[in-house]
């Protein structure tokens, strides 16, 4: 029953994708509307416009270009011409570092907040104010104080991924069932051992959910951050290709951002499943 449902869903997905490609192909194939264009714009658009071909690349153009990228993802021809793999690597490394720092800070702090009503109340106003700040708003301050654009991007990732993890950890820890805590108490389990043997496993699904939200946000933010700081990374690549007017490369980058984002999410989803326990 479920397998047939899955099969039918896959068929529908493929049909939808094919329809999307078909419409895309038809829409970008060619138009007769050459004369309607203002002369400057036509000049700007160059051959594509004068030949009556759409400026928007079709799926076949994108496919061909994608194949080219996939064949050599790691080439490096100087600062403005690096392989897609290298650019993605930079972005993933920044996200990884910023995210890791956030984990190191958010989880112990979340434990503290979850376990101590005093600290929870004391830190609450700060968290309430800091949480809604767009991570990119920190960028100028980061650039000014850190001075290194790459580290600033990592800082921005840290700042944006810390909140969901912090709040989820605090919530998960505070919501551990009283009876499990009581089991540990009646067994005279010390605070540290209790934190690791009862609270951590009990709160792990909630913590991992926070981590999953964080990785999603971090991946959203890295593209914007790299557009701002420039130099390397998939965000910079998108911006650079836009300046080169290579819409094909922009589309490929968008596709790659989506795929990497999905993979990161799936990895965290798998971890979440590993720590989730049935009750």
């Amino acid at each position, binding site marked *: 029953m479920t397998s047939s449902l899955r099969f039918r869903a896959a068929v529908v997905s493929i049909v939808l994708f094919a329809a999307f490609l078909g419409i895309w192909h038809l829409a970008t194939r060619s138009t007769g509307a050459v004369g309607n264009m203002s002369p400057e714009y036509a000049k700007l658009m160059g051959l594509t416009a004068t030949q009556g071909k759409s400026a928007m690349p079709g799926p076949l153009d994108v496919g061909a270009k994608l194949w080219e990228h996939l064949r050599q993802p790691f080439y490096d021809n100087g600062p403005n011409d690096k392989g897609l793999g290298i650019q993605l690597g930079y972005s993933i490394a920044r996200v990884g570092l910023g995210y890791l720092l956030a984990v190191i800070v958010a989880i112990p702090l979340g434990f503290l907040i979850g376990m101590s009503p005093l600290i929870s109340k004391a830190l609450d106003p700060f968290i309430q104010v800091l949480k809604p700040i767009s991570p990119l708003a920190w960028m100028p301050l980061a650039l000014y104080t850190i001075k290194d654009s790459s580290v600033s991007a990592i800082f921005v990732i840290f700042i944006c991924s810390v909140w969901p993890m912090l709040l989820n950890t605090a919530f998960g820890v505070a919501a551990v069932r009283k009876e499990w805590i009581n089991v540990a*108490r*009646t*067994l005279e389990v010390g605070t540290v051992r209790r934190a690791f043997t009862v609270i951590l496993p009990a709160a792990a699904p909630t913590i991992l959910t926070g981590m999953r939200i964080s990785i999603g946000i971090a991946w959203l933010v890295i593209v914007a951050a790299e557009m701002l700081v420039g130099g390397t990374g998939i965000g910079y690549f998108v911006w650079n290709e836009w300046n080169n007017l290579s819409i094909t490369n922009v589309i490929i980058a968008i596709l790659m951002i989506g795929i990497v984002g999905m993979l990161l999410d799936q990895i965290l989803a798998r971890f979440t499943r590993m720590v989730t326990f049935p009750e």
Partner: protein
Amino acid sequence: MTDKFISIEGIARRYPGAGGGETTIFEDLWLSMKRGEFGCVIGHSGCGKTTVLNILAGLDQPSEGAVIVDGQAIEGTSLDRAVIFQSHALLPWRTVLGNVAYAVTSKWRNWDRAKVKAHAQKFIDLVGLTGSEHKRPSELSGGMKQRVGIARALSITPKIMLMDEPFSALDALTRGTLQDEVRRICLETGQTAFMITHDVDEAIYLADKIFLMTNGPGAVLAEIVENPLPKDRGRIDLHRHPLYYALRNHIVDFLVSRSKTFAATVTDYDPRNVPVVRPGKPELVVAAEAEDSIEASWPSVARPSTSA
């Protein structure tokens, strides 16, 4: 003094009330048990039974008074006092073996894995869960979960077992089997046990002493019923014993009417000197019994010979 293994001495528990004042759940509560005795508390919901048990466990602190166990005032929880929780409170991310082993390693921190496992296994076998060691709580029935709870409590060889309505969530058949197991284990090991129950027959089957509590707030321990049935009583033919109905009716009467009217009708109530009754037994037996055991436990107090 020596045979007062557990002694609850004048404890009170108050909560901040709604209107700024305090609500007293109970106060000046005195209760004692001998080593190896099985005590059951019966009373209506909300009278404070769980609160008493939690204080005994050390999970809750009395607002006044103290609890002495084995000659020492208790301070917080202890591995000497194991709790079997009503909701079994198994750690769902651990297996049956893992749950019992957690208790074992908590008591004996320097035992190696093999020793812990062997010890845990012994108690899993004792409660009849051999073969289910590697199952998770979610894969067990309610009765099996409670068996794990019992194994976990017994595995640390506690001085006292505290049980808060341990079988109330189970079906009658499972409840019966587990009652048999608990009684067998307690008799075999001379385990001191303190249990809360709603089930009169459960109390009659398991308990040596049944503590009757009146309704809250301001609940009091109205009387202590000594179980007159023989030690070798069986669960199945319990009701055939000549004293069974006298005992049962006495407890049910209390629950139905006297638990509500107690405060209004009894004027000379002394919380330190709660009447002990043996329903169905002639007065003389009570007096004789009082002479050699009950009086001895409170030598300075003259006990009124009370019957139903």
